[in-house]
């Protein structure tokens, strides 16, 4: 797939989300949209504000949450030194964007599609739902730990058939896993299952897909530490089914469930 280029664009807005309950943690970053030829939901961008200078040497990978009408949107959680600085960006600040990167999710408009999202793993599905020709055929299952207003769930539940489970304490994890497993068993359509979320969440999806014989129509979007985003540094490798290394950035981030092994370190 042909990639876009590396561009310096301006920040349009940094919109805080979930302010009343998790202040300073969740944001929507709105940037000028680079001159991309094309992109697909499930692809990502590398972002590196020019103000990082020589100090932070890597860009940070983020799913494309939307890209239209001149605006590129990503949703992020401020967790570490890079994302905390992204949260402090102001309109007009310059950010380097390279992308769109990676492959994106499959689309099968004629059949029902089950989306399984954990936490910020919901971000790429905003783009997926907005771009889907038949959103009424989509079922969304969302598992989250933070208050709902931190995520674009309310917006998406207006467009698709959506359910959610909240993990209020670590003890709720078993409930989430049970609900997820039940959701997959109940989805007896011959359509796609698409998942994005923390690695243990994806591990549950993968195991269940194999149990139910659904691996060939289940896709997982993986997260790995990335330096280059273009397949060159070999830092983002995961094991494929045969035990060989594949780069998440250039061969993924979306993989068929049977094609990758997931580390649970």
């Amino acid at each position, binding site marked *: 797939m042909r990639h876009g280029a590396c561009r310096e664009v301006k920040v349009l807005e940094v919109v805080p989300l979930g302010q009343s309950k998790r202040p300073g943690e969740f944001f929507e970053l709105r940037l000028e949209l680079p001159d991309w030829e094309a992109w697909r939901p499930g692809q990502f961008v590398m972002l590196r504000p020019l103000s990082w200078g020589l100090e932070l040497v890597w860009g940070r990978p983020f799913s494309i949450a939307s890209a239209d009408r001149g605006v590129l949107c990503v949703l992020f959680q401020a967790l570490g030194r890079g994302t905390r600085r992204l949260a402090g960006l102001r309109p007009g600040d310059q950010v380097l964007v390279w992308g769109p990167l990676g492959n994106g999710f499959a689309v099968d408009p004629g059949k029902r599609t089950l989306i399984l999202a954990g936490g910020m793993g919901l971000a790429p599905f905003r783009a997926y739902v907005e771009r889907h020709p038949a959103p009424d055929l989509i079922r969304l299952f969302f598992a989250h730990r933070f208050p709902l207003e931190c995520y674009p769930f309310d917006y998406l539940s207006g467009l698709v058939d959506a359910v959610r489970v909240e993990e209020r304490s670590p003890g709720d994890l078993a409930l989430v896993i049970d609900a997820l497993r039940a959701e997959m068993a109940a989805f007896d359509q011959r359509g796609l299952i698409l998942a994005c979320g923390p690695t243990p969440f994806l591990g549950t999806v993968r195991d269940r897909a194999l149990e139910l014989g659904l691996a060939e129509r289940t896709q997982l979007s993986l997260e790995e530490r990335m330096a*280059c985003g273009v397949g060159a540094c070999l*830092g983002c490798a995961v094991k494929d089914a045969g035990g060989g290394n594949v780069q998440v950035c250039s061969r993924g981030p979306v993989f068929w469930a049977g094609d990758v092994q997931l*580390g649970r370190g």
Partner: protein
Amino acid sequence: MDTSVNLAGLRLKNPVLTASGTFGFGLEFEPYGDLAVLGGIVVKGLSLEPRQGNPMPRLAETPCGMLNSIGIQNPGLEAFVRDKLPRLPWREVPVIANLYACSLDEFAELAGVLSAEQGVAALEVNVSCPNVSRGGAAFGQDPAQIRAVAEAVKARCANKPVMVKLSPNVTDIAVCARAAEDGGADALSLINTVLGMAVDARTRRPRLANVVGGLSGPAVKPVALRCVHQAVRAVSIPVVGVGGVCCAEDVLEFILVGAHAVQVGTANFMRPDAAFAIASDLPGLMRGLGLDGLEGYRGSLILPGPGRGG
């Protein structure tokens, strides 16, 4: 403006090469610039057989730099020659193969096959590998072994230039530089990464699965400049500066200290068009400094005179 350089018989249109392991096989960066504007492309380290490299995580970001313990993951010699080299624009830009092996015989075999390829302009020898027949001590830490590797590769290089890449993790880089020259090396490149470590105080774990790894990026530029400064005074073969080059001014700093050319490494991760931008910014910067070529500027560093202390 003349930015061209003669590197041990290799004609470079400018002194900006890419560093092994940071630019893939070049093809990954084609969307971000015209490979032909580069002085040269040094490709990912190659071994005889494919290698999976070290376990994950094998990268960590550190202030002004990063650690890596990739462990020379590569598809092996055969796959490179068959799948990668034919797709590279080697007629327009010199492609330099980077050799990784754990014995003299393997180095010689790699050199024989790669130098016979029309698309390979020169060989760069990575001596940071452990020598299996010598109890695993790295070749690059022992001047006698550096010399032996240079000799083994030179004997099979079909008269293509051989550049030995030195490790900074030694007591005296000048001794290593001389050993490579004595072994017949046509050029030197330095530095490879600086051995380092990062840990997480909360999880009590090292940040790399391999525990230790190689530091690179702007943080190592002072180490690289010092090594180049010491190496150029020890040998008469050309030296290529590697370590923290991020902009055209960094290129001139290495040339000022005496380098013929530089390699851009970690900067390719800071932005994928970095090497292209550095190559295209260089003439403007030279003009601004009143230079019309690099020859006269090279090694023109003004050192403090005697008696000034310091």
